[in-house]
């Protein structure tokens, strides 16, 4: 009995066999009980494996006992190592990772606007928030062309970023960065994110430095990231 159950859960049955198994599973209590035991055992083992791996991954490195006569030498070596560490070794986090997390945390959902001049802006935001970027883009593009003062063109850029159309996103963010009338201008910061997604670290780093020196939106993130990755 377990062979059929195993073949079913391991995806080794043909469509016809699968349908027959599912019919039988629905009607045959004994088969359903065996399937439940099969899955319960797997779950119990997975739980055990989880606890073991989690403990391995999170355990602190054991401290090796030191003989006292070695301690001064070791201490000196550690000072040297720490100095080398600060000069040579980067953080575990790369600028790309920071950008990825920032996008994940802040740019996956756009705020809904109560003062929307057009229902279509709200529709496009809904599309964006449901990852229907192509549908969102056509509306944002149309709205941005009709009225560049609304946030549609910022959102058009973000949608291009999500679609990985990095060059198109950069055109928009650079135009946004040049707009002196925006109260909170994130154009340069978004352009830096886009360059990081493109893998162009040096340009991204330069833009992040400009965000800091010009006191633009995104300054606190830029400072934190650049300080950490040095």
């Amino acid at each position: 009995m377990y062979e059929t159950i195993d073949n079913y859960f391991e995806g080794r049955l043909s469509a016809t066999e699968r349908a027959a198994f599912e019919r039988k599973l629905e009607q045959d209590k004994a088969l359903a009980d065996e399937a439940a035991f099969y899955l319960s055992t797997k779950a119990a083992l997975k739980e055990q494996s989880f606890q073991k791996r989690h403990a391995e991954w999170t355990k602190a490195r054991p401290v090796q006992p030191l003989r006292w006569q070695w301690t001064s030498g070791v201490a000196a070596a550690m000072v040297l190592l720490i100095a080398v560490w600060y000069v040579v070794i980067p953080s575990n986090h790369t600028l790309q990772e920071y950008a990825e997390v920032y996008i994940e945390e802040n740019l996956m959902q756009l705020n809904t606007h109560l003062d929307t001049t057009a229902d279509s802006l709200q529709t496009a935001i809904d599309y964006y928030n449901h990852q229907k970027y192509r549908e969102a883009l056509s509306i944002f593009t149309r709205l941005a062309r009709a009225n560049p003062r609304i946030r549609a063109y910022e959102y058009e850029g973000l949608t291009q970023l999500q679609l990985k159309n990095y060059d198109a996103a950069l055109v928009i963010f650079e135009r946004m960065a040049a707009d002196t009338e925006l109260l909170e201008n994130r154009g340069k910061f978004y352009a830096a994110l886009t360059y990081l997604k493109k893998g162009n670290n040096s340009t991204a780093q330069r833009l992040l430095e400009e965000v800091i020196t010009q006191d633009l939106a995104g300054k606190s993130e830029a400072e934190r990231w650049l300080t950490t990755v040095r």
Partner: protein
Amino acid sequence: MTIFGTQPSDQDIVDGIRTGGSQRTHFENRLYYKYRYLIRNGSRKHKIEEDDASIAYSDTILTVIEHIAAGRFEGRSELKTYVHQIFLNKCVDVIRKRTTNTAQGFQRVSLDDLLIPVPDTQRTALADLIRQQDHQRIRQLLTRIGERCQEILTLWSEGFSDREIALQYHYNTDGVAQTTRLRCLEKLRVMYKGSQ
């Protein structure tokens, strides 16, 4: 890859896990360390304890490893995006468990994941049957079915294929590995029924 090139690429990790053997454990660990910054981010973003975020993260990595090994991760999205998305779901699970205080046999194993092949119409009934099993008893009996059986069943639960199990234990074919594994399961079932 980090600025100084100390991290393996996502493709290296995927290939390493799929290669199996000792390589697999090495790349599993690299995967864990590569994205562990998510623990702190998840804790802050979802307002959960760092320990809970750490558990959700380990759970995420084991899920991703299983998906890679079983071919369910097909590379249609970036591995990083995939890890982020699963971690987000695991954090939401933590919040949901905290708010609903759901009692179930397992703390970190999702029944939904186990029941993926089962049609929606039959999931609830099968999930109920799983909840009715004596999980404590199963755990105890697993310690008594013999070392080889324990190892083989553990590898299976971690997503190792019969081919990998056959290679590890020098069985001639995948079929031998499957038969051995299912005999272990039947032995456990007999012990379970006998203990009731």
